[in-house]
């Protein structure tokens, strides 16, 4: 397979000066930078009949991601509908118990001080 005389991805000339054929370039081992190459850049002399060197360029647009399976939760607080909560009664009892505990503790502390 002939070597390419076109510019390498890094912009340097090919090391083999005897090679003049400008066939299709092999796929470079180093990924090309993500930019399109025009035929003018590939053939700087601009002479007629020259064949543009086409290098494989990675796709600029990534394929669409699959739909996320996890719902992203926003930082902002989500209001809680306690009226629709089947545990509402239990939670109210628990809150009352905690409040009563707090009252007892405060009054006991006040008696001591």
């Amino acid at each position: 397979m002939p070597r390419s005389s076109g510019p390498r991805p890094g912009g340097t000339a090919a090391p083999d000066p005897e090679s003049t054929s400008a066939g299709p370039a092999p796929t470079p081992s180093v990924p090309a930078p993500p930019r399109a190459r025009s035929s003018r850049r590939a053939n700087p002399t601009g002479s007629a009949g020259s064949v543009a060197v086409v290098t494989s360029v990675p796709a600029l647009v990534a394929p669409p991601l699959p739909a996320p399976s996890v719902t992203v939760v926003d930082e902002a607080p989500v209001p809680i509908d306690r009226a629709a909560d089947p545990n509402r009664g239990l939670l109210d009892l628990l809150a009352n118990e905690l409040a009563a505990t707090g009252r007892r503790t405060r009054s006991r502390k006040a008696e001591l001080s």
Partner: protein
Amino acid sequence: MVARARADAQAYGTLYDHYLPRVYGFVARRVADRAAAEEITATTFQRGLDAIQAGTLRSETIGGWLFRVAANAIVDRGQRGERAIPEGVRAADTVEPNAVRRDPLVDDEVATATFLAALERDELRRAFRRLTEPQRRVMILKYLDDLTELELCGVLGVSAATLTVRLERALRALNAAAGGASIHAA
């Protein structure tokens, strides 16, 4: 009232009378030494007066602000006890630059222990220990310290909506950890 207190010492006296028992109680539940609790309370109100005179306090935030200052003073005293710090210098100002600064209200072990000891049911006590630190903190401030919603927002630095959600989640977590159906009124 805060605006009046800026120019009127008597108005500040009214604020002082209103908040003194609650701020002192807040401190006394965290500091065992009575003299230290009184000193911290006095420091808190002195800073309150300074802030009012400087015009940096508003009426709706003074409650939360005072509890926040008291909490900072408690931590400051704890840090002062660990290192030799000259009088008149805040312990927080002497912390090494690379040192991890603790959130003042994380140091609520004494208040939490007091509240746990007062709970009558063992399963609730065990469940309370399984809550996260922020969940325990908001519960202690609400149920033990009896802070109002506005005061809680000021102390924790959150909006009313965030506070509501945080409280509700803490309550649900406690209920779940305690086994849910075993809850009954005390």
